C-alpha cells in the first residue's frame, strides 16, 4: 500500500470509520431491506442520513417512507445528472402527500430491486426530457395514495371517518374532536393498509409545493466536496483500471507489450478487455495513466483508417440530391412547384459531430465473482445498464445489481451502456477484487457517442404576397437509430431524424403552414459512433429550418418575425412563445448602436420554445450579449430550475455551435481534450432572460427543448450584423472579418 501517511493516519482512519458507521446506521436504522448495501458503497448510493437509534420506518408505499422523526424519504427512480428531475419528482410526490417539504429527503432506486418488485417504480430511463413528464402522473398518485393511507390510519385510531380529517404539512387533524397526530406517528399503521387504487389528484392551480421555485434537495454535498461521484468511489481493496480503445471506431486491438510497463510502480496487470480495447490495472490512477501512455500498442485500424471530415462530407453531400423514400412531412407537391417556379431560393447547411464531454468522465466500479456482480456507476438507463451488466458478467440478471449514483453531467452520453459492459469485462478478469474503471478525458473525447453529422439542402419559392409557396428540405446524414437500434430502421427509414419537423405531433410539430412542403431524409452513416446528445436531432433541424426561414424573410423583403407570423396562424402555441420573446426583447424597436438581433422558434420534446439573440460583431469578433428565451412546457414543477435548464441550454447549444465541433482525421476524432474541443466559458456567456410561460393542458420536457433555438437565433443575428450567412458550423471555422 502506497498510502502511508504517518501524520494523517488518524485522519484517514477517521474518515473511513465515519463512513462505515454512517453506512452501518443506514443499514440497521430502518431502510427497507432491499436498499441495504455493502457498507462502504452505501455512502455513495444512498445519501440519506439517519439519526442513530431512530425507529425502524416501514414503507408507506414503495415510493416513500415516513420516519418517526417526521422526515419523509422519497424514492427517485429517474437519474439525476444536474437537470433537477430529482427535486421536481420529490415536489410532485410531496405536493400530493401534503408533507412538510423541509423534512423531505431522497433515496435512489436500484434497478435490480425494481425488477425483483415487478417494476413497482416503473421506467428508470432518463432521456428525451421525459424524467418529469413521463412519471408525473404516477408519482403524484403515489403521493396521494400515501396521504390517504396515513389519514386512514389516524382515523382508524380515533374511530372517526377519514373524510372528517384534514392534513397540513404532515400533521393530521380531526377538527370535531380537536385531536391531532403526525405522519411519523401513524406511518407504521398506515403501511399495513391496502394501497388505494383510485385517488384524485389536485388541480395544478391548487399546488403549494409543486409549481414553486423551491431550492434543490441535492445541493449541500455538492458545495463542500462531500458528494461521492462515480469517479470518487473507493471500496476496500479496490484497484483502478484505465482503458484505451482503438481510436478508429471499428478498429481492432492487435497486440500490446505488457512487459514494457509491468515493472512500473503500482502496475498490477495489463489485459485485453474486448477485441478493440486494452486496460492497465494499477493501485492508483496516475500509475495506470503513466503506464497506459507508455504501453506499446499495435492497432488494426481497419477500413476506416483513412476517413476524414472531408471524405465524410463528400459522402453525405451526395445524399442532398436525388430521390429518397424517407419522408417526414409532406403537404401538397413541393417538388413539382419548385420545378416550375421562376425564382428558387436555395441554400446548403451542415453541422458537425459534437462530443457530450460531461465534466465527470465515464467510470464504473465493479465487483465480480462467479456468483454475483455489483456495479456502482452513474447511468441514465439503470434497467438497461443492469441488463448490459448481466450480459457482460455472464450471470443471471438476478445475481447482478447496478447501484446508480448521482451523475456529474451526462447530456445523453450515459444513455449508452458501453462503458458498463467494458468495466465488467475488466473486473471479470480479477474475481472478487473491486475494480474502478476510469476513463481519461482523452478516452472520453475519442470514444464518445457523437452528435450525428448531417447536411441539409433547402429550396423554396415565394408566392406573389411574399409567403412561402413551396419548400423542400432534404436532410442527409447520420442516423442514431441505425447505430443504436438498427432493427428499428424500417422501409420508411428513421423517423427520429425529423424531430420538430413533423405534421401533427404533440412531440415536435413543424411551426409553419406551407401549402407545398416536403421534408425528407437520405441516410448516410459514417463509421463514427453516434449517440443522443442533449437536444438530439432538434439541434440541427432547428438550425437548418430557422436559419433558412430567415433567408426567405430576407428574400421576401420582410421582417423575420413578421414573416414567420404569416405562416403561423394555425400554430398559436408556437406563436405565443415567439411573440413573448419579441415583446420582451423590443423586437421592431431599434437596438443599441452596433447591436443586432436574431430570432428563432422551435418545438421539441413536447415544449414550445423561442429566443431572440442580441450580438455585436467587431473586427470579426462575435459577442453574444443577451438572450431572451421563452418556453411553454405546459406545466412547470419548479420555475427556478426550469430557468436554470433554459440558461444552461444556451451554454451547451451555443458552446457547440460557436466553439465546438469534432473533426475526423485518419479515421479518428481529432480533438482529444478541452484544449482542442472548444466549449463555452463564463467569459462568453450572454445574459439570459427566461420567460417561463406554461399554458397548461399538456406536459412537455424542459432539459432539452430550448437548445434548438440557441444557435439559429444567434446565427440570424450574425447575419443582421454582417450580412453573412453562416451555413457551416461551428462558427469558429468562419472568419467574420472577411465580408
Amino acid at each position: 500500500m502506497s498510502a502511508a501517511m504517518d501524520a494523517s493516519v488518524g485522519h484517514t482512519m477517521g474518515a473511513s470509520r465515519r463512513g462505515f458507521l454512517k453506512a452501518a446506521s443506514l443499514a440497521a436504522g430502518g431502510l427497507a431491506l432491499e436498499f441495504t448495501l455493502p457498507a462502504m458503497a452505501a455512502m455513495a448510493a444512498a445519501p440519506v442520513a439517519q439519526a442513530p437509534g431512530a425507529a425502524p420506518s416501514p414503507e408507506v408505499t414503495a415510493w416513500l417512507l415516513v420516519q418517526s422523526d417526521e422526515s419523509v424519504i422519497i424514492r427517485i427512480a429517474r437519474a439525476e445528472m444536474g437537470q433537477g428531475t430529482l427535486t421536481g419528482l420529490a415536489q410532485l410526490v410531496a405536493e400530493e402527500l401534503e408533507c412538510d417539504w423541509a423534512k423531505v429527503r431522497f433515496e435512489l432506486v436500484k434497478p435490480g430491486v425494481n425488477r425483483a418488485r415487478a417494476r413497482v417504480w416503473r421506467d428508470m430511463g432518463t432521456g428525451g426530457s421525459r424524467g418529469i413528464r413521463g412519471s408525473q402522473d404516477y408519482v403524484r398518485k403515489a403521493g396521494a395514495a400515501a396521504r390517504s393511507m396515513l389519514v386512514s390510519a389516524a382515523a382508524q385510531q380515533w374511530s372517526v371517518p377519514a373524510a372528517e380529517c384534514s392534513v397540513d404539512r404532515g400533521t393530521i387533524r380531526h377538527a370535531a374532536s380537536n385531536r391531532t397526530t403526525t405522519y411519523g406517528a401513524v406511518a407504521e399503521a398506515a403501511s399495513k393498509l391496502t394501497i388505494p387504487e383510485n385517488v384524485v389528484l389536485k388541480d395544478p392551480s391548487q399546488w403549494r409545493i409543486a409549481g414553486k421555485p423551491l431550492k434543490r434537495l441535492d445541493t449541500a454535498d455538492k458545495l463542500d466536496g462531500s458528494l461521492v461521484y462515480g469517479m470518487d468511489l473507493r471500496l476496500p481493496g479496490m484497484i483502478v483500471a484505465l482503458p484505451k480503445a482503438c481510436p478508429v471506431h471499428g478498429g481492432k486491438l492487435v497486440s500490446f507489450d505488457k512487459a514494457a510497463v509491468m515493472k512500473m510502480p503500482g502496475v498490477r496487470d495489463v489485459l485485453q478487455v474486448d477485441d478493440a480495447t486494452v486496460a492497465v490495472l494499477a493501485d492508483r490512477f496516475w500509475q495506470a495513466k503513466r503506464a497506459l501512455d507508455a504501453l506499446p500498442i499495435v492497432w488494426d485500424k481497419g477500413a476506416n483508417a483513412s476517413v476524414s471530415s472531408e471524405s465524410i462530407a463528400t459522402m453525405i453531400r451526395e445524399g442532398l440530391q436525388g430521390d429518397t423514400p424517407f419522408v417526414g412531412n409532406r403537404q401538397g407537391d413541393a417538388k413539382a412547384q419548385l420545378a416550375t417556379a421562376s425564382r428558387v431560393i436555395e441554400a446548403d447547411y451542415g453541422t458537425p459531430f459534437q462530443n457530450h464531454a460531461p465534466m465527470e468522465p465515464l467510470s464504473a466500479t465493479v465487483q465480480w465473482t462467479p456468483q454475483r456482480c455489483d456495479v456502482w456507476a452513474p447511468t441514465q438507463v439503470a434497467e438497461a445498464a443492469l441488463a448490459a451488466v448481466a450480459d457482460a458478467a455472464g450471470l443471471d440478471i438476478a445475481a447482478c445489481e447496478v447501484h446508480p449514483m448521482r451523475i456529474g453531467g451526462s447530456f445523453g452520453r450515459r444513455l449508452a451502456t458501453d462503458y458498463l459492459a467494458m468495466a465488467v469485462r475488466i473486473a471479470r478478469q480479477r474475481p472478487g477484487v473491486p475494480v474502478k474503471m476510469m476513463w481519461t478525458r482523452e478516452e472520453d473525447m475519442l470514444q464518445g457517442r457523437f452528435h450525428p453529422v448531417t447536411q441539409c439542402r433547402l429550396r423554396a419559392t415565394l408566392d406573389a404576397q411574399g409567403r412561402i409557396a413551396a419548400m423542400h428540405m432534404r436532410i442527409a446524414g447520420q442516423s442514431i437509430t441505425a447505430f443504436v437500434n438498427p432493427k428499428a430502421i424500417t422501409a420508411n427509414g428513421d423517423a427520429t431524424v425529423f424531430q420538430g419537423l413533423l405534421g401533427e405531433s404533440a412531440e415536435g410539430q413543424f411551426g409553419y403552414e406551407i401549402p407545398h412542403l416536403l421534408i425528407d431524409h437520405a441516410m448516410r452513416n459514417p463509421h463514427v459512433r453516434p449517440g443522443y446528445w442533449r437536444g438530439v436531432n432538434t439541434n440541427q433541424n432547428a438550425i437548418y429550418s430557422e436559419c433558412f426561414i430567415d433567408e426567405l424573410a430576407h428574400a421576401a423583403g420582410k421582417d423575420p418575425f413578421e414573416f414567420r407570423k404569416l405562416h403561423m396562424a394555425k400554430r398559436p402555441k408556437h406563436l405565443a412563445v415567439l411573440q413573448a420573446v419579441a415583446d420582451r426583447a423590443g423586437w421592431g424597436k431599434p437596438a443599441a448602436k452596433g447591436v443586432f438581433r436574431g430570432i428563432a422558434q422551435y418545438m421539441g420534446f413536447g415544449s414550445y420554445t423561442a429566443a431572440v439573440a442580441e450580438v455585436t460583431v467587431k473586427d470579426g469578433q462575435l459577442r453574444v450579449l443577451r438572450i431572451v428565451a421563452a418556453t411553454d412546457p405546459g406545466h412547470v414543477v419548479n420555475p427556478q430550475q426550469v430557468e436554470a435548464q433554459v440558461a444552461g441550454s444556451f451554454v451547451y447549444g451555443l458552446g457547440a455551435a460557436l466553439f465546438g465541433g469534432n473533426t475526423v482525421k485518419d479515421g479518428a476524432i481529432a480533438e482529444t481534450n478541452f484544449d482542442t474541443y472548444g466549449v463555452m466559458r463564463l467569459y462568453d456567456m450572454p445574459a439570459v432572460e427566461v420567460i417561463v410561460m406554461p399554458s397548461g393542458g399538456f406536459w412537455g420536457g424542459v432539459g432539452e427543448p430550448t437548445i434548438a433555438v440557441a444557435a439559429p437565433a444567434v446565427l440570424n443575428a450574425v447575419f443582421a450584423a454582417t450580412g453573412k450567412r453562416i451555413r457551416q458550423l461551428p462558427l469558429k471555422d468562419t472568419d467574420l472579418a472577411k465580408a
Partner: protein
Amino acid sequence: MTELNVNNRQLRADVDGDTPLLWVLREELQLTGTKYGCGVAQCGACTVHMDGVAMRSCVVPVSALPATAKIVTIEGLGQTRLKVVQEAWAELDVAQCGYCQPGMIMAAAALIAQTPDPSDDDIRSGITNICRCGTYPRVLAATRLAAQRLRGAGAAR
C-alpha cells in the same frame, strides 16, 4: 515520502514525485472534493489554493511544491472566505450536476481574495473554469453576492 500542508494539517504521502497534486489529494488523502476533469489545466475542476492563490492541481507534480506551500481544498471548511462563498452558492442554488462546482467555488474565493470588489468583467475573465451544465449566470451572481458579503464582513471588523 512527500510532506504536504493541506487544510492546515501536516501530512505525508508515499508517492512518486511526478504524481500531480490532484491525485495525491484524491487517492492518498481521500480529499475527493477536488475533481479530475481534463488533466491538462483546461477545465479547473481540480482548482485548489496554494498560499491563497487558485491553482490547477492536475498539472502540478507534488515534488514541485515548495516545502512551505499551504494547500487548501474544498474540504477546508471553517475558513471564512470559503464558507461565505459556499453559502452564496447555496442561496442562489447554483449547482446543477455539481461536478465542477468545488473548483468554481475555489476559483471564486481566490478571485475575491485578490479583487474584493470585482466587476462582472473581472469575474468573467477571472473564472475560466468549465461548466457543461451551464451554471455560469448563477456563478456570476453568486460570486458577486459573496464578494459583497465579504466586503461587509471586512467593514464590520
